[in-house]
């Protein structure tokens, strides 16, 4: 069923579509990022994709272009799905916002922005959604160090983690624990 949609898409936008496949019933089209808004508008209006189910990014570190946007569309009236992808380069990680087409894209794009650092042109408010305002960097990028912590409070020293009271069972002074001071991280 959605194979027909994919064929229609290929016929309508031969320049915009870079590649496409329907492996295991997952119809997917990779398009150029410049034509995203145009293609998406056509899909929504002409192919009855009323719902943007998901919007996220993938970081292919080492490849060029580095990032790939992934959009999952669903038609509620016709009951089929389509996946649209678009590559975004690291040097200029910008792509059009889909808020004019689907209002639900707003928070997806905010999350995608804070986690991957992709900017959405035309988004009204790209404040962090899940992270706190002081957070530096984009934690889901593959080059974000696994052990980098950005605490908001001064953390108590790790070697004095135990707080003995006079009624404590063991009663001895603070037990030495492995040093995890890397938690203080960089800012």
């Amino acid at each position, binding site marked *: 069923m959605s194979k027909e949609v994919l064929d229609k898409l290929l016929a309508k936008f031969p320049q915009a579509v870079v590649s496409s496949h329907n492996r295991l019933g997952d119809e997917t089209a990779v398009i150029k990022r410049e034509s995203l808004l145009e293609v998406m508008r056509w899909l929504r209006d002409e192919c009855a994709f009323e719902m943007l189910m998901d919007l996220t990014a993938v970081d292919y570190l080492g490849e060029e272009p580095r990032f790939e946007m992934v959009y999952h569309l669903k038609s509620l009236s016709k009951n089929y799905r389509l996946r649209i992808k678009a590559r975004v380069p690291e040097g200029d990680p910008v792509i059009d916002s889909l808020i004019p087409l689907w209002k639900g894209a707003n928070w997806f794009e905010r999350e995608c922005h804070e986690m991957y650092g992709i900017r959405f042109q035309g988004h009204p408010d790209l404040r962090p959604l*899940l*992270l*706190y305002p*002081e957070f530096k960097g984009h*934690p889901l990028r593959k080059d*974000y160090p*696994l*052990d*980098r*912590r*950005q*605490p*908001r*409070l*001064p*953390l*108590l*020293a*790790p070697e*004095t*983690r*135990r*707080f*003995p*009271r*006079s*009624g*404590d*069972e063991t009663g001895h002074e603070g037990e030495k624990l492995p040093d*995890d001071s890397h*938690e*203080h991280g960089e*800012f």
Partner: protein
Amino acid sequence: MGLESKLGSGFLATKLEFFVNWARKFSLFQYPFITACCGMEFMSTMCAHYDMARFGAEFPRFTPRQADFLIVVGTISHKLAPVLRRVYDQMCEPKWVIAFGGCASCGGPYDNYATLQGIDRIIPVDIYIPGCPPRPEMVLDGLMRLMDKIQKTKLGDESTQLRYEEMLSKAIREWKGPKVEAANLRADW
């Protein structure tokens, strides 16, 4: 009737310390700080099957100002840490803290950018209850150990609070990061 007929109108001799601690350990007013799936086990412990009321700690206060027993149940993220600090600071002395489950004790399975690696990095903890999540029996065991600890506490012992102050001052002195308004630590922060 009852006790008076046995004792008459006389008096009881006991140590003040013993009596005060005895009274404290059987009337813990808890503040449950629940953020994650451990909350299910906490509810189970609170309800009729396991019945925390048997230990006199059944009554949750929904303001920390009326509570003396903080139960931190679930994962605490760095984003949430200032809130937990503030809740702890609002409680009156004497106060006790239980870290409920692996996440609250040490970060649990989440060793990543978002998660605080144990609430004892920001507030003092009296009892750690391991488990992911711990069974209600384990929770009750932790509660009974806390009660033992309260019973053995010396009256007027401020060593925990003093040590906490000292560690906090040191941490604040060494702090290089930005000052988060939500944290509202104290004047020298």
